[in-house]
């Protein structure tokens, strides 16, 4: 197991370098960060030259990338559009997005799995058909539509919650945005659980559990659920990275100052350090989440052995 983890961590290095270089290349080579600083005005050539030199932009792309990576390792992600360091921007943005993601994951786990179990065990019944239709709607309607609709209904009309989240983003204000963020994944979790449960209810070992005279709740929880949730847990694990990166739309709708919001600002203002810095961290989160899922898989299913 230990060797497996080390090998996986080593494998991450080329993936990490490759993906960060790609982002770096796209942001730096395809835009002009200096021009962006001046907005509509044409920059004074001497000043522009000075800024280029300060930002290490007068070197080759490869050298720039090496320089950037070197700085990352000493914790310097450069300066954001508002003059703050990107690191301090991350320090304020990531906790907010992590809170939002936690809320979303909780929704996925509780509602998604519950709906999946109910529909999986009552296949073909009205509940099943109804929920299945609902998941189809949720999956096919874009998040910004459901987001604005729910914001309008619960935030503006019913006033159950604030339509826009305050800068400190406490948990209670993140419930509705968390739900919006979770919706599509929640629909997938429901379907995945449903299929998995339906498949396993006919499994021989479930029949054995019944034949042993175990009470129904024990058959369902210890035997049926324990097996059926393995693919679901894996899905939710991999979804962590996707949720954090995918929060851009949700954070825009509810004006949450998290990762998605800052990333959006960075792109809008063509601020390379912000974009590259945030994406780099997201890539890292994604890779680690995947490793964690693989390890979790081995814990949940003893037939899987990593060496």
């Amino acid at each position, binding site marked *: 197991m230990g060797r497996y983890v080390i090998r996986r961590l080593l494998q991450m290095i080329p993936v990490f370098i490759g993906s960060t270089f790609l982002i770096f290349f796209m942001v730096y080579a395809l835009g002009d960060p200096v021009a962006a600083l001046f907005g509509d005005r044409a920059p004074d050539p001497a000043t522009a030259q000075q800024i280029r030199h300060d930002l290490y932009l007068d070197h080759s792309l490869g050298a720039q990338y090496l320089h950037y990576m070197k700085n990352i390792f000493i914790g310097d992600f450069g300066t954001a559009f508002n003059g703050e360091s990107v690191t301090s921007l991350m320090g304020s943005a990531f906790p907010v997005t992590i809170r939002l993601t936690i809320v979303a994951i909780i929704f996925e786990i509780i509602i998604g799995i519950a709906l999946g179990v109910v529909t999986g065990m009552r296949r073909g019944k009205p509940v099943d058909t109804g929920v299945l239709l609902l998941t189809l709607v949720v999956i096919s309607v874009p998040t910004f539509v459901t987001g604005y609709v729910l914001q309008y209904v619960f935030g503006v009309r019913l006033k159950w919650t604030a339509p826009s989240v305050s800068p400190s983003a406490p948990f209670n204000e993140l419930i509705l945005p968390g739900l919006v963020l979770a919706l599509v994944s929640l629909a997938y979790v429901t379907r995945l659980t449903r299929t998995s449960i339906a498949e396993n209810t006919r*499994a021989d070992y479930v029949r*054995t559990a019944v034949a042993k*005279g175990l009470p129904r709740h024990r058959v369902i929880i210890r035997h049926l659920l*324990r097996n059926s949730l393995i693919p679901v847990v894996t899905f939710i694990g991999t979804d962590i990275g996707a949720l954090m990166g995918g929060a851009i739309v949700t954070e825009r709708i509810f004006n949450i100052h998290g990762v998605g919001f800052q990333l959006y600002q960075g792109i809008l203002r063509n601020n390379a350090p912000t974009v590259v810095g945030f994406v780099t961290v997201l890539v890292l989160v994604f890779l680690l989440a995947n490793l964690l899922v693989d390890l979790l898989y081995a814990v949940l299913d003893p037939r899987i052995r990593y060496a």
Partner: protein
Amino acid sequence: MTATDTMAGAPAPATATAPLLEVRDLHVEFHTRDGVARAVNGVNYSVNAGETLAVLGESGSGKSVTAQAIMGILDMPPGRIPQGEILFQGQDMLKMSAEARRKIRGRKIAMIFQDALSSLNPVLSVGYQLGEMFRVHQGLSRKAAKARSIELMDRVRIPGARARVNDYPHQFSGGMRQRIMIAMALALEPDLIIADEPTTALDVTVQAQVMDLLAELQRESTMGLILITHDLGVVADVADKIAVMYAGRIVENAPVHEIYRQPAHPYTKGLLQSIPRVDRKGQELYAIKGLPPNLLHVPAGCAFNPRCPMAQDVCRTDVPPLHTVGAGRGSACHFWKETLGD
């Protein structure tokens, strides 16, 4: 009427002579998209304490479905029991509450399934799965249950039980896994064990070992055993009596040695002739011609008539009743006398 009924003669005090388990006129049907499949059409059989009943028959003849109905683990729906009684220790289990039946399962009637690999839970250790019997039914602690599990594993002769109790099913060989299934069935010392083709999934050499173990465990107790198989070869050594099923009915039942000597039903005869035998080495192996009937369209009259070498016109119109052939013997054939005779 079953042969056992006629045997009883004068009415005796019901509880004293009542068999451990008696299935009476059991019907099971499955409602599928293509229609109603009548998997079991009036099965009668009984088992006494300490006795082994072998249930024989081709694939699809309803052996497992009957067993599932006894255990109360039929898929309902699509399954349905429109008719019949299953008397266990004198009480009709089909009239019991779901909770009462659950308490019989595992505790009084246990079942051994064919494929131990798929029948054991892949993500729980065998110790957990064995211990669950004691924890749920007897309220033992996790630790005490584990100790009992190790004892059980010893009893079915799994080498190094103490070291292997925390292993998972996939870490055992096929024979060892089936021993674990047997251990699980034995756990609470039930009165009746139903073994549904317990050796079919195993290698030939291992088959005999597992069969011997089962027979030995049964000999040293008073439990009844229903052994479902389509292998007539193993039956002779272990069974006391045999029930042969065809298309959801019992076509012949008899004490084991009599059926080998002198079958009273053409189907049984066909089955016996299809066993490879040393004294007929070199001869072509006999096979009953044709296929088992489609349960959606069981032939009128005797269900076996399209395949029967002795079929007459009456066989295509009248369903043969189970005729009493002798003491404890019955045959559902219009021409059982002729069959016995030749």
